[in-house]
């Protein structure tokens, strides 16, 4: 994992004066909270990434490849060099 959060915190401190008219910015967000948020996001994403993939995607790719193979045969006839 890249130090995404660190980069985000730096961005925020350099943008201190943005959003003075009450527009939502996280100027006021305490770095610890920001860090906790980053960890939560990574935990969430990590959990999604670790989940096993359903077979349907592998089956789909196998079907696609199969179809391509069958389709490519008549075309090969036109090209004698193949």
């Amino acid at each position, binding site marked *: *994992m890249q130090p995404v959060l660190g980069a985000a915190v730096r961005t925020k401190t350099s943008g201190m004066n943005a959003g003075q008219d009450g527009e939502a910015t996280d100027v006021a967000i305490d770095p610890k909270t*920001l860090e906790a948020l980053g*960890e939560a996001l990574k935990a*969430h994403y*990590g*959990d999604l990434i*670790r989940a096993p*993939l359903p077979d349907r995607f592998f089956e*789909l*790719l196998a079907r696609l490849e199969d179809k391509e193979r069958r389709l490519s045969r008549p075309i090969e006839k036109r090209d004698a060099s193949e």
Partner: protein
Amino acid sequence: MPPNSFRDELLAEIKSLRAFAISLSGSMSFADDLVQETILRAWAKWEMFQPGTSMRGWLFTILRNIYYSNYRKRSREVQDSDGVYASRLSVSGDQESHLALEDFRKALSKLSAEQREVLMLVGAGGLSYQEAATICQTEVGTIKSRLSRARSRLIEIMELEKGVFDRMDHFPTESQT
């Protein structure tokens, strides 16, 4: 026919594609249909992919376009905001970490799709602002302000739901390096 290298790269990205789809749509069942459609479209347009560029970025862009043009309305009606997908997915961690993640997901589900996607791409997926901007077909500045707003909003929601931050200590930590 796409070369094997294309197939292999595509295959290697399906997990992250699915994670992105779940985060974007907030629904497991939609996410899998979304991934399926993305694979079909990527396969049909394989010649459009430039070898050496990011397969992940390319696939995310396709998925995102399909989502915003076909799925967005439908998935809003069927969000798994009750934590259905969380309980079906969580394969690791103890009860506390389940609860913490589920709370967090509920909070995430209250954000707009644009906010969720930027949090996922930059905050969780570790993409640069530039990569995220390319995927979302927008400017870096827009990504930064969306990210900033998404964070503020998420924290706001979580502060309302008392105790979410307290339980964060219990998140599973395998993903830490």
